[in-house]
């Protein structure tokens, strides 16, 4: 009697080997057909889409296959007068896409494609009196945006532009009974928000405020019998949580609380052997978003063929090394 555990069953013929070349081919070809239906529909997040694609290619050592000039020109034309960057040409600026743009340009060591001072001004202007950050001029508040703000400024070496103490106070006010974090004060804990908040606290040098044992327990309970991870209790596993959950565990020093080999099997099963790329769960349609987080998750698990990924910024460690950025991690 009682609740059945929501989970997937991995078929015996699911992929079990890592198909990096197929994934590189998939990403390199993605977006080459600009009138593809799905591609068009996702224009509203194009800047993030480019960040996902480039980062996963860099992690696989294949960044040179992407068109740096075309992308830099595109980014330049997406910066608005207010300093913020939009997802695509003619769209409105938002902190989500401002971060993606800065991340992309950091991969290319070319942030000066943007007017950096204006980016900093834009981010500073999004901070509210209570320390929180709005996503854009319309005022939606979310701890995701706190993360985007400090990550952007950290990459530009300009964290001093905001009131970090107040920002920390707001994020900590979003800590819940289970040690996790939600979107706003009072919001339920969710792995995506937990990633953003632990990443934020790492950049702000305040990780000691996290109850690592309690949160680590909540996070390791995301692992289901299939080996996959869900985002919160009683939800299905999804390969992107291999990133949100795993990176959070790495940041708080408890990644060993996950059964690594079972998770690895789950991630590999999410590959599509024909098209390349990763889907949210075995057998579903692939996309660049899940491809990045599948590969990044494998990197955190120690996959030799993939470059080391930084758990706070989801960028190759060697890029951050070049920038001199070493966000704290708990041991």
């Amino acid at each position, binding site marked *: *009697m*009682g*609740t059945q555990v929501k989970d997937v069953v991995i078929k015996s013929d699911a992929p079990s080997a890592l198909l990096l070349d197929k994934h590189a081919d998939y990403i390199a070809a993605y977006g080459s057909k600009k009138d593809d239906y*799905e591609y068009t*529909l*996702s224009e*509203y*997040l194009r800047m993030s889409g480019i960040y996902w694609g480039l980062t996963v290619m860099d992690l696989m050592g294949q960044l040179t296959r992407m068109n740096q000039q075309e992308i830099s020109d595109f980014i330049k034309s997406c910066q608005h007068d207010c300093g913020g960057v939009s*997802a695509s040409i003619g*769209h*409105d600026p*938002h902190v989500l896409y401002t971060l993606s743009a800065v991340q992309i340009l950091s991969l290319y060591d070319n942030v000066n494609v943007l007017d950096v001072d204006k980016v900093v001004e834009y981010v500073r202007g999004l901070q509210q009196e209570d320390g929180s950050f709005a*996503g*854009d001029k*319309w*005022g*939606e508040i*979310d701890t995701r945006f706190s993360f985007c703000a400090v990550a952007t400024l950290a990459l530009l070496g300009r964290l001093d532009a905001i009131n970090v*103490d107040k920002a*920390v*106070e707001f994020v*900590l*006010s979003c*800590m*819940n*009974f*289970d*040690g996790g974090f*939600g*979107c706003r*004060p*009072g*919001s*339920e*804990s*969710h792995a995506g928000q937990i990633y953003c908040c632990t990443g934020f606290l790492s950049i702000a*040098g*305040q990780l*000691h*405020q996290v*109850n690592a*044992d*309690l949160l*680590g327990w909540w996070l*390791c*309970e995301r*692992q289901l*019998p299939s*080996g996959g991870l869900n985002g*919160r*209790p*009683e*939800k299905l596993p999804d390969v992107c949580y291999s990133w949100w959950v795993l990176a959070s565990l790495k940041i708080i020093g*408890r990644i060993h*609380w*996950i*059964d690594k080999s*079972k998770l690895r099997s789950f991630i590999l099963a999410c590959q599509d052997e024909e098209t390349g790329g990763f889907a949210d769960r075995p057998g579903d349609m692939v996309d660049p*978003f899940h491809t990045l987080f599948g590969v990044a998750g494998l990197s955190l698990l120690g996959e030799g063929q993939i470059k080391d990924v930084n758990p706070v910024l989801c960028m190759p460690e060697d890029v951050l090394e070049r920038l001199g950025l070493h966000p704290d991690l708990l*041991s």
Partner: protein
Amino acid sequence: LKIRSPSLFLFSCWREILLHLETVRASNSYMSYPFLCISEEDDVQKMYEAELLFLESCLKVNPKSYGSWHHRGWVSARLPRPDWARELGLCDRCLSLDDRNFHCWDYRRMVVKMSGVPVDQELQFTDRLIGSNFSNYSSWHYRSTLLPLLHPESPDPPSPCHQHSHSSPPPSPQTHSHRVCEEQLLKEYELVQNAFFTDPNDQSAWFYYRWLLGRAEREEMISCVFVSREEERVAVAFSRPVNASSSGLMLVLDGQPQRVEWRSVHPHFRHSPVWVSFPSWSWPHLIVLLPSFKGRSESWCRDSATDQELFRSELSVEKTSVLQSELQSCNQLLELEPQNKWCLLTIVLLMRALDPLGYERETLSHFQTLKEVDSMRSAYYGDLCSKFMIENTILKMEYAEVRVFSLSDKNLTMLCHLDQLLLVTHINLSCNQLLRLPPQFAMLQCLEVLEADDNAIENLDGLYYLPKLQEVSLKNNQISKLSDLQLLTSCPKLTCLDLRGNPVTQIANIQSELTELLPSVTDLLI
């Protein structure tokens, strides 16, 4: 999922249009109907109500769109006459379809705040949901935020030494169940117990219960001070990590404040429980820092671990009796469901709350079972068990010599509470499963002898500037490179080092390499 939702951009455009229409209507009304009573407010009201109707259909298609919910909130805020009861009704309906929709819960919280819905009404709402649904983590979570508002514990009188430094904001009250008055807490135990007895596999109730069994975070205060004339050193241990270099820790001697620089015990930590100083005053003037110091070469002052309620919350008679009966009930449940890991873990937590030392044997046995029935998380259980065994050893320390500490042969997979070991001179960690001596190990500022044989140690990060460390035994570990031993050069008194049974001893010329690295180590065993 992302593709099927109206994008943020679409809503941005609509809002621009709506804002424009607001002003157009206002100016039109004034210009066209200067003597009529139709208020432009009515026009704006109608415009936004139409918008709300449209939004409802959007939400039916995709109830999980950040953009749709935010836009609805934006519209509601601009309505001249918002109908919060209708909005609450919308939330009720949406949650009856999916009571885990966090967008809807967040929207509901906004509506409740704007319209002043009483807290106990919302609490009753959660009662209804919890009573009828299994998948109700969101409802328990909401309860955890409502209880401290409706049934607060009486506020502690402000203590003079309890200061919030600007760099360290207070923790969220939601993490501490002690913020709920005891009477209500005990009623809550009953409610949760009903839930997990009805369905022992409903994890939400077990998570919530763990919160109820939790305790307050300790106040920030000094828990131990150690002074050594010989090393000209003061070490201070706090009850939680602080940044003493910026938050004004003052050393006062004979009523005179001294200019002192503090450093944390390891460069890895900007925030640390233990700080050491190198005072620049000359020692003949150090007469009385601590009452016991006069004429001695070293002295210390430390609060009792048991008195401090170091590891568990204070138990009133009522609470003790309730927890005891909870333990009994959980044991009965365990007989029916011997493989239920939630029940096993909760029994362990109840035993820790009631009598950590008395239940040690049962605790170890339950952890063994947990590792078998929930093997994916065996590393978690190993670490949690290690933590509890270390706590028990610290509690036992109260009744014996405070400076010799043995943790040997306890299946330890990790080390913690090292801030409690500032005064320890001899520590035995042998025969465990430790992989390293972490940076926190540097908190053992008085350590003279370290025995850590028969582990799997490959990293000695924590042997950093331990000023009194003389003997180190690391037989049968996993030290494999000369660079692993580099940090030992920071320990000036080190004379004995036993590295037998480590891979590093197989390196060619290791004897001479080590003699060169550590010339003061006269007693080297490889």
